[in-house]
């Protein structure tokens, strides 16, 4: 039974603790990401969602706890093994992070050139296929500076799937995009996940969008998982912090105000001086 469970789950995160300096970001997070599904990690800004992606990708080391991807304990991997594992991962950064000195074509060709010895003809075919998948084959000769925000993300997506990874991670894919681009990216995420048989992890705080495409949601607040389940389960959750987030309430367990001394005391202090 244990073996079957292990095979079903591509990523297992157990009792994960992570701190930045003296500030604790994650405090005992447990998450399981099933193979072939779209799982979204939600939570308010600054709750450690992007940090979690970087911990899965091995760019950060946890204080304690474990992160395993496809049976490999990521923090224990040496550099060589970590890089081998990353060849099977794709990540789309919030900013797109395209190489500004390369054209769209060369950006998508970059991982193929780095990790394969394919001929130029084959590389061209592969790149055009990936660009066609994101609908930007016609933009192949443009530079990143000539692209809109939405186009940049789609190119970043084409580059991330260039080597057909088993795991695709998206960091805030919808933030700052117009409704049409959001719709396009949503469609692409679902389509690529299903047609390429990959596992998808999305980090986002866009409730409507991720609810529409995710198979499973996790919600993080105050460094802990406060809710998990299908989008419907979380929509109906009565847990205070989940309810506040899912229904976009301005105040609640996640406070509107950053911690401070009482306002009255702050004002009177000025007068006293």
């Amino acid at each position: 039974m244990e073996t079957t469970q292990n095979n079903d789950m591509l990523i297992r995160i157990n009792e994960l603790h992570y701190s930045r300096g003296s500030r604790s970001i994650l405090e005992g997070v447990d998450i399981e990401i099933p193979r072939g599904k779209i799982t979204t990690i939600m939570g308010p800004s600054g709750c450690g969602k992007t940090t979690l992606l970087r911990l899965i990708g091995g760019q950060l080391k946890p204080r304690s706890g474990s992160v395993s991807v496809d049976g490999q304990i990521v923090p224990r991997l040496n550099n060589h093994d970590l890089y081998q594992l990353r060849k099977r991962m794709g990540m789309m950064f919030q900013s797109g992070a395209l190489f500004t000195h390369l054209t769209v074509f060369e950006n998508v060709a970059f991982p193929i050139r780095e990790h394969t010895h394919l001929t130029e003809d084959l590389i061209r075919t592969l790149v055009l296929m990936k660009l066609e998948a994101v609908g930007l084959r016609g933009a192949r000769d443009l530079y990143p500076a000539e692209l809109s925000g939405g186009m940049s993300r789609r190119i970043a997506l084409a580059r991330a799937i260039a080597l057909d990874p088993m795991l695709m991670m998206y960091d805030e894919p919808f933030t700052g995009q117009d409704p049409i681009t959001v719709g396009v990216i949503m469609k692409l995420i679902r389509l690529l996940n299903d047609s390429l048989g990959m596992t998808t992890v999305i980090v986002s705080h866009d409730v409507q969008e991720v609810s529409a495409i995710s198979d499973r949601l996790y919600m993080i607040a105050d460094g802990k998982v406060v809710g998990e389940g299908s989008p419907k389960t979380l929509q109906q959750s009565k847990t205070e912090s989940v309810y506040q987030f899912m229904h976009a309430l301005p105040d609640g367990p996640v406070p509107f105000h950053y911690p401070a001394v009482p306002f009255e005391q702050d004002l009177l202090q000025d007068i006293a001086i």
Partner: protein
Amino acid sequence: MMNWFQGLGHSSLLLFERLGRAATFQIQVLLSLPSLFKQPRLLVQELYSIGVLSLAIVVISGLTVGMVLGLQMYNTLIDFGSEDSLGPVVALSLVRELGPVLTALLFSGRAGSAVTAEIGLMKATDQLSVMEMMAVDPVKRVVAPRYLAGVISMPLLAAMFSAVGILGSYMVGVGLLGVDDGAFWSQMQDKVSLDGDIFNGIIKSFAFGLVASWIAVFEGYDAVPTTEGVSRATTRTVVHTAFAVLGLDFILTAIMFGDN
């Protein structure tokens, strides 16, 4: 008073921590250099942008420095009736000192600052992170070619600076002020030794190239990934390189020419 000591101790700790990071980074870069044999194209690209594109500023500066040096030296030497010694005086000044030092300072202002800004901006815009996630080591792919290109370019640029400087002083001394053509070259040939002067000059420029390139790539890679952080890192590259080159120049000069 206590606060002052605390501040001093804190600053010292930060300084040593940073020096330690810089040393570790230098080792990491040196270990990455063999990977360039697999992708020599990366080195060639950087040799062009760091070396070839610095040629204009080095040639123009070398020419003007040589011309000024020729003029100033002539005015002093003529008082002693030794204006025929203009050739060796200018050549020794350039080959031993001014060539390597001024080229290193120009190199840091033109290429070193650009390298720092480029690497720092790549860091600030997640381009280095995305490279890591694509299983491409940014130290091998981005840092190592720039570092090695700097180390190779510096001695060549310094040689170019000295050669053009000598030509500039020749134009002024022989062309304008009437120093004897034959005396200019023959005395230079007689007084400037290959192993004592030229070779030591090359060693100096090579050492400056190592230091300037090290500072440039480290400052970029270690930059705080914000607009202000990259701006400060770029400034630090120019300032720290200037201090390091001038300090190192004194040490190397004392070792090479101290007992003459």
